């Protein structure tokens, strides 16, 4: 039985005269995997910032398990069970891989047991390496690992495969499918091959509006979506 985990109602965000998001209704149930796509400037980052509460919507509300989270302090949002992986890998360079994971676990409201997350993301051999010395791809994995470490209820991923090889991209898609048994996941992505590999509920943003929503196969076949991507609309 899956409950509604997160619900956006009539959300608009304006920066001065610029409308970044307009009138968005969206919800996601627990243990599901959704993907958000859209051309540059479509409002994907704003969408994610609203979801994480970093940005309070100008109009409308965002509720996480029935509780309004608009404008809550970052660490409080995190303690509710929303984890976020940033676009630019932002691991803690001065700490080792294992210490990075520790800091992630310690932040959770109820501290989870040490799990084999490092194993899952393929970094168990690099435990004692300083995060600063990891390769770009490894940093991305560590990021994802840190996001899972606190066993969140909702995991938000901002371009999780940026800078990865196509092999790593496929592996990441498989990893997310495994993870959705434990947590709901929303991924914002640019790379269509990754979205295709995910093959899941997909949301298309265009000019700040919710343009289409449906399974990827439908979205991919949609002429209007293609037009958006090719800049014909």
């Amino acid at each position: 039985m899956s409950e509604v985990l997160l619900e956006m109602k009539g959300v608009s965000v304006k920066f001065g005269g610029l409308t970044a998001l307009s009138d968005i209704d969206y919800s996601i149930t627990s243990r599901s995997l959704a993907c958000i796509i859209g051309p540059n400037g479509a409002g994907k980052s704003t969408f994610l910032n609203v979801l994480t509460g970093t940005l309070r919507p100008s109009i409308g509300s965002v509720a996480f398990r029935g509780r309004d989270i608009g404008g809550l302090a970052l660490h409080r949002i995190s303690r509710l069970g929303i984890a976020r992986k940033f676009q630019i890998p932002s691991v803690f360079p001065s700490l080792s891989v294992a210490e990075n994971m520790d800091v992630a676990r310690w932040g959770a409201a109820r501290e989870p047991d040490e799990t084999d997350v490092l194993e899952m993301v393929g970094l168990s051999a690099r435990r004692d390496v300083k995060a600063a010395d990891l390769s770009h791809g490894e940093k991305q994995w560590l990021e994802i690992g840190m996001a899972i470490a606190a066993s969140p209820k909702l995991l938000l991923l901002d371009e999780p495969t940026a800078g990865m090889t196509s092999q790593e991209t496929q592996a990441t898609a498989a990893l997310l499918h495994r993870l959705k048994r434990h947590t709901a996941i929303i991924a914002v992505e640019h790379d269509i091959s990754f979205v295709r590999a995910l093959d899941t509920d997909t949301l298309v943003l265009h000019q700040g509006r919710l343009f289409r929503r449906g399974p990827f196969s439908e979205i991919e076949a949609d002429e209007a979506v293609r037009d958006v991507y090719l800049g014909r609309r």
Partner: protein
Amino acid sequence: MKHRGRLVALAAGTCVLSIYPAFADEYHLTVLRDALLFGLFAVSLDFFWGSTGILSFGHATFFGLGGYVMTLVTMTSGLPAPSVLGLFAAVGAPAALAAIVGYFLLFGGVRGSFFTIVTLALSVIAQQLVISWSSVTGGDTGLLGVPPLALGGYEISGAMATYIVVAVTLIVVLLALRALEQSRWGKILIAIGDNEVRAAALGHNAPARLTLTFVISAAVAGFAGGLYVAIAGVVAPDLIGLLLSTEVIVWVAIGGRGTLLGPVVGAVLVQRAQQEISSMNPSLWPLILGCTFVIIVFVAPDGVMSIAERSRMLLRRRSA
């Protein structure tokens, strides 16, 4: 490896401190004792600056406040155990001030240069207040005759006794702060220093942790100030002013920021140099201090001890 190295250094330092009285006369013992007290003060600054990366440019405010509070409490007649009460106040008052400053600045998102400037102003103001409020503080000349430490009717005075108190206190504080830095607390602080937004996104309350670190740092500074005035017997505005605030930065920078032990070494060495230079020409010291600031920044940004470490690594690489 690095951690073990520091523990060895601390053990070596303890040995030096315990042997020193056997070779030194009373005068040199008191000189080292005073230097160590300022070393304790330097440790307090390093605990905050080293672990958070935020520079307090007015740390003497806390040292001096501890000193003045200690003076006022111990000079009030009729109190039971005045030294103990005084030291509690010398710790409590700066801690409370730091909590207020931290609440307004650190919770307000003030970081980096802004924090540095506000704390600098804090030190300027504190000194002015102390000078102008002469009925209580003794104004420009300060107050003479601060009673020595007393515990249960036994007075701790004399070079040897005070030296031992200072040395033991210093070692205990160093060990405690080191343990704190290596605990979960310290790791999270490093994470906050690396990337505060990320740490907050993981559920850590960064402003609260930074403020508490600042409070602990101020409490240690105040404790050092309280001990200092009781042992020196005087309190004066230069204990709270901008010049001391900046000198302590030099001690920490020379000894190596974030090493805790380094600042003690820095404090002892720099004060030794200061005495030598001032005895030749008193107005030369600020000039040399100023040059030192500039030189550190360009030559040894990680402290003088790091030069030793670097050259050792270089040697090892060559021999390998």
